[in-house]
């Protein structure tokens, strides 16, 4: 059984605006529109998106679309019961490949921030875990950003590696900037484009715990990869990543945010974290791990399992500190896809090797799953989870649905 990831654009009619005039049903050339005594609805299996019904609609109610996984498309019967349209659960934005771990927020918007990605709320959860702390979002905006001071900027990857990943620490002084692990902020790079427009903000995951990069300080850290080429491999300096990687201690940065209200960690002590990431997608995993490490002293019993992929050991951010963590605290699995003389290995391959342990975690209702990395990893990781679940006698489709519903599966890709 394979994972069906096909996402469709489903055509829906807004029952609060529709006047039930029958014009659309009359117009539809393929008979996809039908009605009962209450609502006019579109059958997603028949609708071919020809748009013939759109301009004749007198109300505009017809012009509603939702991105949704094909298998989850709203049925005709379900639509008949609606009093109002369901909310769109995902926002896709432009992707600036490889810039770092930028993200966009699904709840409340990110005030025009680009260079991000999506919290995938079609394939993953729209809600945080029940025990997550309540996040603050959008405190500082384009119109009113906050100034942060650089208090540290270190290269994380080996000098020999072509991958230049920096660990940057920003301090907010006396200004409030409350954050949670899994949230992100955006940086406004100075200057303007060749056309004279101000550069848009870039989003980065927070790599530190809620109580500060240095515990008890009002600071946080980011994991930023210097972008030297675009997605097609053409040489091109990333505006914001180069700006950040070149910052010196004492420099100031304009910041907006925080963003993100669903990719958050559970706070009940016996909850387990299954974390799967690649490259700078490790930022939120580092944050959550660090928070758990600090809390561990207070008697938390939950398990942590990490699958972390990079091209080589030298490109893996935080390799040293990660290896120093106690084995009984976190189960670390590293996959390298470009190690000389070794077969390519991806995170999903490692997950399959550890199928028994992963299946055990899937079986535990206190397990929360976090995936963060390049968009391309999502399908492979979900397929691996599906195979592991099915092979261990846990049918994936219902389990997946449950994980999403309970805020236990969080996907963030860029």
């Amino acid at each position, binding site marked *: 059984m394979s994972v069906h990831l096909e996402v469709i654009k489903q055509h829906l009619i807004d029952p609060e*605006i529709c*006047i039930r005039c029958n*014009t659309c049903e*009359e*117009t539809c050339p393929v008979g996809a529109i039908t009605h009962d005594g209450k609502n006019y609805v579109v059958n997603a299996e028949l609708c071919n998106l020809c*748009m013939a019904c759109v301009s*004749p609609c007198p109300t*505009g109610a017809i012009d509603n679309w939702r991105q949704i996984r094909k298998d989850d498309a709203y049925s005709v019967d379900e639509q008949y019961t609606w009093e109002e349209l369901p909310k769109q659960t995902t926002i896709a934005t432009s992707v600036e490949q490889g810039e770092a771990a930028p993200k966009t927020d699904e709840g409340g918007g990110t005030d025009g921030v680009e260079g991000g990605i999506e919290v995938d709320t079609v394939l993953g959860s729209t809600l945080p875990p029940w025990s997550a702390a309540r996040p603050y979002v959008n405190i500082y905006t384009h119109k009113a950003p906050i100034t942060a001071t650089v208090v540290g900027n270190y290269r994380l990857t080996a000098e020999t590696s072509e991958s230049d990943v920096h660990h940057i620490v920003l301090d907010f002084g006396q200004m409030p900037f409350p954050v949670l692990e899994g949230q992100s902020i955006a940086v406004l790079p100075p200057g303007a484009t060749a056309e004279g427009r101000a550069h848009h903000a870039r989003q980065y995951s927070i790599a530190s715990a809620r109580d500060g990069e240095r515990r008890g300080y009002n600071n946080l850290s980011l994991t930023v990869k210097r972008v030297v080429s675009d997605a097609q491999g053409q040489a091109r300096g990333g505006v914001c990543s180069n700006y950040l990687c070149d910052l010196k201690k004492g420099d100031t940065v304009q910041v907006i945010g925080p963003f993100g209200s669903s990719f958050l960690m559970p706070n009940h002590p016996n909850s387990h974290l299954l974390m799967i990431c690649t490259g700078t997608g490790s930022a939120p995993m580092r944050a959550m791990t660090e928070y758990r490490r600090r809390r561990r002293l207070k008697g938390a019993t939950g398990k942590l399992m990490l699958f972390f992929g990079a091209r080589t050991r030298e490109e893996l951010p935080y390799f040293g500190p990660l290896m120093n963590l106690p084995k009984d605290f976190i189960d670390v699995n590293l996959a390298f896809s470009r190690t000389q003389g070794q077969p390519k290995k991806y995170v999903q391959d490692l997950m399959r090797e550890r199928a028994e342990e992963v299946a055990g975690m899937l079986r535990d209702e206190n397990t929360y799953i976090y995936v963060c990395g390049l968009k391309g990893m999502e399908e492979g990781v979900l397929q691996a989870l599906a195979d592991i679940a099915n092979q261990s006698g846990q049918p994936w489709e219902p389990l997946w649905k449950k994980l999403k519903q309970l805020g236990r599966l969080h996907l963030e890709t860029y």
Partner: protein
Amino acid sequence: MTSIDYSEKIPNNVNLAGDRTLQRALEQWQPNFISWWKDMGPEGSQAFDVYLRTAVSVDPGGWAHFDYVKMPEYRWGIFMSPAQQDRQIQFGEHKGQPAWQEVPGEHRANLRRIIVTQGDTEPASVEQQRHLGLTAPSSYDLRNLFQVNVEEGRHLWAMVYLLQRYFGRDGREEAEALLGRRSGDQDNPRILGAFNERTPDWLAFFMFTYFTDRDGKFQLSALAESGFDPLARTTKFMLTEEAHHMFVGESGVSRVIQRTCAVMNQLKTDDPQKLRAAGVIDLETVQRYLNFHYSVTLDLFGADQSSNAAMFYSAGLKGRFEENKRSDDHQLKDASYKILGVDGGALVEREVPMLNALNEVLRDDFIKDSIGGVSRWNKVIEKAGIPFRLAVPHKAFNRQIGTFAGLKVSPDGRVVGQEEWQRNQSVWLPTAEDRAFVASLMGRVVEPGKFANWIAPPPMGINKQPIEFEYVRFN
């Protein structure tokens, strides 16, 4: 004589450019139409640039073309829904025979009468609404009014086309007479009663477009089943435009209710006097307007038992609403239908031959459809957490035509005496004071995006434009 560039000036799919007879007839009629529009069309607005929808063809992409237009320059077109190959008559004695492409001699007088009666309502409503532009609650609403008006104008064109193309000289005379009658005129009134009533304020306009234009929808739907194919195809296309009129009505009333509920919650009161003082229309007054427009519209369907209706059906001239979705024999010779009658001062159900009750069948379909929208209005009230609910009155309430004419029936369906009727008339129907109050709220709001205090803004603009779009340029 005005010469007409047929392909450009009059968008059509009836081969106007190739039909000399029709061209001559229209050349006569068109200047008179423009002159009627200037005299009786929307008052004081002929020079405005209005963001209007014009049908330029019948395919989905072509019939909703939006642009700024001065109304007298609106391109009133002549359209029929695409022909259905080998279409057959779906009901009556000629069921199964090929649909008529020309008027059958024996039905000529009746068909002409049907078309004239329908056609007469179109200019009538433009006349009824001609003063409303002066008190529009927003430029969005003003634009919607004008859209309704120009489309009623186009519906007149559609009927005139049928008269001129298929009915020779007497058709041309009837077409002229459609421009001669005047809504509310003592000497030369419009044919149907409801179209001689005034539309004095915007609440009345919204109620009119909700209820009375819905009568139009049901009449057009019945005619869209006609065995006379040009009539069927013409009315079928008109239905697409009629939908906009009902949208204006349903959303208009809904926005009035929404605004009132907001103020009720703000002031934490359901006292009509306090609400009126706050400049919104109390829900009781909305209910009275509803009672009036609903009952007046029910009369438009005609007598509950009608041999004319039976004959129109059997002859294949006028069908039922959604004829092809019904599973009976479509001839109805043995079918019966329950109608409400009066016996000894009480309302009783009687079973009568369905053929004779076809007006009542259509009226009942209308009632079902009307109730749907009223329940959507109630959702707005419910959402605001207010216990009030609107309801359509009993169908025997305030009727002037048919069995119930002269009978006094309360909105909840009790036959009442003269005394009780008198006592409650001001609770059940709008009073002069109600109308004066609503009229007192009517003041023109022209700034884009601004709305009068008594009505909420719509949830979205027209044609995906923002709500604050400049829908009317006043020049």
